Structure formats: structure tokens, C-alpha cells
């Protein structure tokens, strides 16, 4: 299968994975390996005085030999998001940032106005932005205009496991932004949801909760890897168009008793 490119860096895995919510650090590492992921998301948080939580977590990630995509999760204003992105660049030494500006605590709906504004500021400052957005084409277009080469629309609210709610909206984004790396981020609950995203021509998916909160996160990680691979393979193989009427797969010519069928 073909590789996927994010800001000129090529990857064979199309499954980006989060590092939160696992039952243990060991299961997190095993799940990430089982997923075959080459890109993992991380966050930044305050360290309590005397604390070493950040150091302990960071050494676990370094053992995995993966590319890190820091997020701005929890930021509610442009100012918070921009400063958090700059802290991430300082801390992780990467220009990559998964940009989140959140509008609503219950739905974790992106503040798309603030998102576009923050993306423009960060791109001018040399960042390579992965914006978490809705499936709105106008917003995606504004993000591309601001310089985003990756756009990450949600399937459904973060952690909801609903799968793709607006299939037509996601398909429209794919059709209208053929040169942009599109990642379905958030709301996927099952490997079949991930497969659907890849079948639509999406370049990758990003997920966390559906794997981390499974009864067996390591097995679920592998299931998602297979779902992603199946979806991409199907897309590259060329899916048939749906149609309204039946079309026989068994040859009609030579059907027994053909002469007796009116």
C-alpha cells in the first residue's frame, strides 16, 4: 500500500494514536506497538513542585521510537492555544502541533473561528499545524488558505464512539480538498468506522478512547490496525458505486429451464 505524507514526511502507518486513558503504562506501550502506529499524540500539563510525572511519561514514549504530535487539548482561547503550541515546540523540539481550540465543554466542539485564527498565527511562526475541526467545508477551506496542509475533521464528538455521523460532509471534504492530507480525528468507536473513513479516501485516522477503554486495548489496537489497512486497501483497489437495483452476479446465459421462464 502507498505511504501517507504529513508535511513532506512519509509514513507507512495510517493509524495515529493517542497516549491517554490506558489501564497502565505497559498496556499503553503494547497497544501502540500492536496498532503499528508511527505517530502518537501527547499533551502538556502543569508539573507539581517536586514532581517527575512528565519525565516518567516521556521516557515511556521515547522507548517506542515514534514521531510525537503534541496537542493543545483543553485550550479555549486563541491565546492559550498559541502559547501552548509554542511550549510544545520548546518541550518536544517539533514544529508539529495538533491544534485544538474548544468551544463547548460538553461536546468538545471545536471553536472553528478561533481555530482558523490560531492556525494562521502559528503557521506564520513556522509551525506545521494539524487542526482538529468539524466537517464543515468552509472552515476546512479557511484552514487550507491559512497554510494547513493537513486537516482533521471529527467523525463525531471526542470519545463518543458514534462513528461517522456526517458521511456526506466528509466525502465532500475529500472531493474538494484532493491535495490535502485528511485525517478523521475523534468519535470513532469500532474498526469498521476506521475502515469506512479510509474507504472514503481519507489519508488516516486518529483515535484514542476506543482503543484505550476497550476491555483488551492491545487486541483492539490490532483490530483497528487491520480495519485501517482493509479500508485503505479497498480504496486503492477501487470500490464499486452503490446502485438502486439488483444486478445478478451469476451468469444469466445458460440458466437451466431458461426457455420456460417468461
Amino acid at each position, binding site marked *: 500500500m502507498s505511504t501517507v505524507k504529513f508535511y513532506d514526511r512519509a509514513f507507512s502507518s495510517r493509524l495515529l494514536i*493517542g*497516549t*491517554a*486513558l*490506558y489501564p497502565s503504562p505497559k498496556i*499503553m506501550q503494547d497497544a501502540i506497538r500492536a496498532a503499528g502506529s508511527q505517530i502518537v*499524540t*501527547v*499533551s*502538556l*500539563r*502543569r*508539573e*507539581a*513542585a*517536586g*514532581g*517527575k*510525572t*512528565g*519525565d516518567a*511519561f*516521556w521516557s515511556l*514514549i521515547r522507548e517506542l521510537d515514534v514521531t510525537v504530535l*503534541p*496537542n493543545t*487539548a483543553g485550550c479555549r482561547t486563541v*491565546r492559550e492555544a498559541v*502559547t501552548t503550541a*509554542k*511550549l*510544545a*515546540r*520548546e*518541550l*518536544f523540539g517539533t514544529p508539529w502541533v495538533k491544534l485544538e481550540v474548544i468551544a463547548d465543554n460538553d461536546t468538545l466542539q471545536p471553536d472553528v473561528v478561533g481555530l482558523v485564527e490560531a492556525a494562521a498565527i502559528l503557521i506564520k511562526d513556522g509551525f506545521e499545524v494539524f487542526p482538529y475541526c468539524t466537517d464543515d467545508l468552509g472552515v476546512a477551506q479557511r484552514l487550507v488558505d491559512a497554510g494547513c496542509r493537513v486537516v482533521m475533521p471529527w467523525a463525531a464528538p*471526542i470519545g463518543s464512539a458514534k462513528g461517522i455521523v456526517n458521511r456526506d460532509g466528509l466525502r465532500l471534504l475529500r472531493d474538494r480538498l484532493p491535495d490535502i492530507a485528511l485525517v478523521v480525528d475523534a468519535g470513532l468507536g469500532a474498526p469498521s468506522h476506521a475502515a469506512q473513513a479510509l474507504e472514503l479516501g481519507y489519508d488516516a485516522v486518529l*483515535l*484514542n*478512547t476506543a482503543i484505550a477503554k476497550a476491555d483488551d486495548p492491545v487486541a483492539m489496537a490490532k483490530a483497528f490496525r487491520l480495519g485501517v489497512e482493509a479500508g485503505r486497501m479497498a480504496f486503492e483497489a477501487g470500490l464499486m458505486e452503490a446502485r438502486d437495483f439488483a444486478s445478478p452476479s451469476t451468469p444469466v446465459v445458460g440458466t437451466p429451464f431458461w426457455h420456460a421462464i417468461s
Partner: protein
Amino acid sequence: MRVTVNGEQREIAATRIDALLSELAYEGSHFAIALNFDVLPKSRWAETPLQPGDEIEIITPRQGG
């Protein structure tokens, strides 16, 4: 002097960021610092003076989705 560290007011003796980290017993190696909402690169921790009322955020890597 009185400053705010990670949202909490503290009375500190340190006058520079690197001294503040020592005073508050930060022993890890992976920190980023924001001083009054601006990132303060590690290369400037030793030279940047603290002022009363400064807001300091001490940030480390953490799990995220």
C-alpha cells in the same frame, strides 16, 4: 517576592527561573516554561530576572489524545 506558579500564589526567594526550579524542588529534566504567557526558552532560564507578580507556568509532557 510574590509570584504565581502554575496558578498558585507563592512567596519565593529566587530571583531567576533556574533558581526558582531549584527552590521548588523540580528535579526532572523535561520542562517548558511560560513567563507571563510567553515561552521562555531554556537557554534564558539562568539570565531572566523574575519580577513581583510574574505568572510562571511549569509544563511537562503528559498523556494526550
